[in-house]
Every structure is written in structure tokens, then in C-alpha cells.
């Protein structure tokens, strides 16, 4: 048993479950991407590179990949900008209220994303609250829904609770005495934030960004409902190919690309997190 005692034995069930429910389907998916998709949804039986060759040679899918990553980064950025002050306020609020505020921040998760998306359809729609408000203050409202704007607004709101939770989890190192010390040495508030608060909360920021990014790039219901069929992303393409046109090999290949994006996000996260830790230490 060596140094770890019974530990490997205890991990075994979890490893077995993961192998069976994650790795095995993934391998199947990989296998499927080397078949040929026939018109009408048939799947060829011979090994072929055709699906991958067409996919990689087609600029359309490169565009979709870049658009998906770009949109996800934008949404992550907005979720951070909107979530950070909230999380900070909750963290600094009186202990009596803090739990209540945390619950209030994450309570949107109690309602399904589909329902919240429909809510946004009502709010952003032509005769909804947001355009009426804009008209009221004399601004001709741009189209807020059934396009990229709608998708970004909807996803930022839907994913904010995850961002806030991650930020709160990472705020543990924050210590008000450090800020007071900096201020007493003559640092203006902005410098205190930039030099003290931000570096100390960086682990939470990174975790929140990773989580939000991964959730954005894999969400397809909200982009489908709020995008009006115009916002073509990696996840919506996978859905359409798997469910509507029944081109399973192409859907499998696109899924593996999405998996690759997740892997890349993890690597980037790991690098930045390590660099940040070294910088703080």
C-alpha cells in the first residue's frame, strides 16, 4: 500500500465511474468523428478523415470558433465588471446581513435558465421594459434582442451568480488592515485598490473567469432563444448538427474542438494563476 495507505483503493470507485461515464463516451465521440455523415442523417461505417478534413478546410467553422471564444470572453468580462462590486459589497457587509445577501445573489439559480431567458425576451423585446425606458428618456432604442446584444445581456445575467460565488470564495485573503495601512502611508483609494485589493482578490477573479468562460462557451439554450437564429456559436452548431440535421460525425468533431477550447482555457488559467501566486508571494 506504500506511502498513501488505503487511499488508492478509496479513489478507485470514483475513477471507475469517471472512466465509464466520461472517458468511454468521449472515446466513442472521437470514434464517431472519423465516420462519414450521410445526407438525411445516415452514418457511414468506414474509417474516414472526411469530416475532419471538411471541417478544418472550412473558414466558416474557424469564424464560428473565433466568434464563440470572443463572445465568451466578452461575457466573462462583463460578468466580472458587474459581479465584482456586488461581491465586494457582500464581502464587506455586516456579518448579520452577509448570509442573506449571498442567498440573494445566488437566488437566480433557483429559477431555470430557460425561464430567465424568456424573462429577458419580455424585458428586451420591442414593447418591453428596456426599450420603453430608453424611449422615455428620448433615446431611440437599438434592437436589444434576437441578435448578439441580447445573447450577451442574457448570458451575463444568467452567469453572474457563478462569478459572484467564485469571487466570494476567493476574497478570503482580503484583510481590511492592509488597506488601512496603505492608506495611512498616503496611497489614494485607487492605488490601494490597484496595488492591494486587486492582487489579493486575483485568485477569485481567475476562478470566476474560468468558470464563466467555460459555462458560456457550452451554453446553447440562451443563445438559441435570444439570438434569433443569427448568433451561430460552437454550442449551437453542435446542437443543430446533433438534433436537427442529424450529422452526428460533424457534431462529434465540433464537440471535440469545444473540448480542446476547454483544455486551452484550463492551461491559460493554470499559467496565470501560478504567475499571480508568485507575484503576490
Amino acid at each position, binding site marked *: 500500500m506504500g506511502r498513501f495507505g488505503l487511499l488508492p483503493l478509496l479513489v478507485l470507485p470514483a475513477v471507475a465511474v469517471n472512466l465509464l461515464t466520461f472517458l468511454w463516451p468521449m472515446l466513442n465521440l472521437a470514434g464517431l468523428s472519423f465516420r462519414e455523415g450521410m445526407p438525411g442523417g445516415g452514418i457511414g461505417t468506414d474509417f474516414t478523415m472526411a469530416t475532419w478534413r471538411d471541417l478544418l478546410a472550412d473558414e466558416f467553422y474557424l469564424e464560428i470558433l473565433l466568434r464563440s471564444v470572443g463572445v465568451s470572453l466578452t461575457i466573462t468580462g462583463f460578468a466580472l465588471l458587474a459581479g465584482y462590486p456586488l461581491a465586494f459589497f457582500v464581502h464587506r457587509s455586516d456579518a448579520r446581513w452577509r448570509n442573506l445577501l449571498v442567498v440573494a445573489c445566488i437566488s437566480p439559480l433557483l429559477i431555470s435558465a430557460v425561464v430567465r431567458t424568456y424573462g429577458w425576451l419580455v424585458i428586451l423585446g420591442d414593447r418591453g421594459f428596456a426599450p420603453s425606458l430608453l424611449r422615455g428618456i428620448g433615446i431611440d432604442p437599438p434592437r436589444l434582442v434576437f441578435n448578439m446584444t441580447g445573447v450577451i445581456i442574457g448570458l451575463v445575467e444568467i452567469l453572474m451568480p457563478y462569478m459572484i460565488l467564485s469571487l466570494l470564495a476567493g476574497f478570503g485573503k482580503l484583510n481590511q488592515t492592509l488597506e488601512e495601512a496603505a492608506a495611512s502611508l498616503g496611497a489614494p483609494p485607487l492605488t490601494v485598490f490597484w496595488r492591494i485589493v486587486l492582487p489579493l482578490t486575483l485568485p477569485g477573479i481567475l476562478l470566476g473567469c474560468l468558470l464563466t468562460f467555460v459555462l458560456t462557451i457550452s451554453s446553447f439554450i440562451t443563445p438559441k432563444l435570444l439570438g434569433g437564429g443569427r448568433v451561430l456559436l460552437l454550442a449551437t452548431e453542435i446542437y443543430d448538427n446533433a438534433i436537427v*440535421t442529424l450529422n452526428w460525425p460533424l457534431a462529434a468533431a465540433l464537440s471535440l474542438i469545444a473540448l480542446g477550447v476547454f483544455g486551452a482555457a484550463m492551461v491559460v488559467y493554470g499559467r496565470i494563476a501560478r504567475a499571480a501566486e508568485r507575484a503576490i508571494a
Partner: protein
Amino acid sequence: MTISRRHLTQGTLGGLLAMPFIRPAFAQERTITLAAYGGIFQENYQAVVVDPFMRAHPGIKVTYFAMPNSAQTLGTIRAQKAAPQLDVAMFDITIGKAATDEGLLDPLTPAEFPVLADLAPSAFAPGVNSVGVTFDSLSLLYSPETVKPAPTSWRVLWDPAYSGKIAITAAPDIVGIGMTLVANRLFGGTDYKDFSRGVQALADLSPHVLSWDPKPDAYTFITNGTAQLGVGWNARGQLYSRQSAGKLGAALPEEGSLFQINTLGLVKGAPQSEAAKAFIAYALSPVAQAAFAERMFYAPVNTKAQVSAEALSATAASPERMGKMLAVDWLEVAKFRNQLNEQWRRRILTRS
């Protein structure tokens, strides 16, 4: 071992509990499973075709398995190829062709189905084992409250007055595919296989379209005031317009439209093949065909079906409209469907 009172009680109770499951086996009741469209289609098909069939055949129970679209029905049959659970499946004719090519459907022979002789020739397609059961056509949906006078031409979609008020379901949905072919003829195309003019016309329309993916559908978008114009299926459009109290209208434009064919297929290796055949024969019979046309304005495939003039005038099957219909061979469309879908994604949807 001795049988105690406790054992006896347990046995009796167990038997009683199991009764509901034992009874059907004794009664020799056969259950067939029909996979067809859900929602309002299911509601009406169940009422005027499935229920009367069960009353006429007390030994057969039909379970209606609702499907959101033809492609998913095909996916289900394909997944169950080794051990089919479905007996009868309804899908559009191109999916019927794909299912036949994959060996998922048994042929329906005139010997077993005398009713086939009464069906319109367009109910059949070479190399397709499923047989037409309803005809439907594309129609122009509008909001009678805001679109005045009632539109008579597809061209109203390109009227700048309705910019940002249009809802159409894009390709790969068959509404989007069909609309491309209608627009192609409208803008001077002479052969639907060369659909470039249709693609160009819809690309020009794209910035004025509110949503290419109305959820749950275009009918709802117009009924609740989100959109004012749209494209949908005539049967549903006619039915909803009668239920919507003036919120939705369905027009059959003067330039004509195109037919779409829903077919019924007998699943190969179906668990209850004989009962399934009885159901298909009934669904194609003049009685069932007329009942469904009266109820939901699907044009009948059975030429002997007696449909009232009123119901017929709400379908594209009236004699004066038939001549204007764009003759489309859906099996030809299936060949270029992927290519058309790519054009949609590259040239229409991404343009705004």
C-alpha cells in the same frame, strides 16, 4: 414448509396488487405505438383519427408517442433498429426516403392495402416505403390587426413597412427550405434546383427579419404581437387563426406555394405488425382523411375523401390554387438540402 396465515395474506395481497398488469395479458389486447408530431397536431389527430380507430378496433390500443420533428423520429427508429419499440411512424417524405434507404421501413403493398389505389399519385415516391398521409402547404402568416389590408402576395415580406416585424424559421427547418424555393420563383428563378435567386432574396430580407428562430414558433410570435408577418404551415395557420380571435391570419398568396407531404411508415420488425397495418389502412381511409381535413385543414391524400367546400377552400388543394403550386420533388430537394443549408448559414443568417 408450512403455509402460515401470514404467507397466505401476503400472497393474496401481492396478487391483488399485480392484477392491473395481469389483466391485459388475458384480454389479448394489442398495443401499437405511433410516433407522430406533438402539440396541436397530436391533440387533433388523436381526437379524429386515433380515438375513432380504437373504437372501431376494441382489441387494439394506440399509444401516441409525440415527436418534435421528423428528424428526431428517424433518429429514434434508427437507435431502436435492433429492437424496435415503434410500430408506425409519421415523418415528411424526405425523411421517409432516408429511413427506407437505411432499411428501417417495410413496404406497403397494394395486396395488403387496397386503399392505396384511391390515393393521389403524389402520395407515392419511388424508393420510399412510407406513403403520403396528409398534404400541407406553406402559407403567409400575418397579424390582421396591423397588416391591413390582408396580404395577398409573398412580396409583402419585402415591404419596408414591416422591417423588424418578421418571424420565419430558418433552414435546416423545412419552412426555411420551402420559403427559399418560393422566393426563388417569386424573384424570377425558373428551376427550383437553381435556388440562387431565392438565397439572394432572403439574404436581402435578413436585416428586416426580427427572428430566424422564433420559439416556440412563428404562429405564437404573431399571436402575442412580437411579430406581424411570418411563414408557416397552412393547416396549423388556419386552425390557429380560427382560435386566435383575430390575432393571427393565414393567407394563401396569389403566386402560389408548395406542398409538403407527411408520410406514414411501417417500422421494419415492428412488435405489432398486423395491428399496425390495420391502423395505417384506417389512417388512409376516406373517413379518417376527411375527418382530419375538416378538423385541421390538412389536404387529404385519399381522392375519395368527402371534404366540405369550406374546409377545402382553406387548403391549397382547391382546384384554382392547385395550378399555381410550385411542383417540388422533395427527393430532389433532399439531394441539395445540405448545400442549401450551408448557403443559409453563410449568406442569409449571418447578414444583418
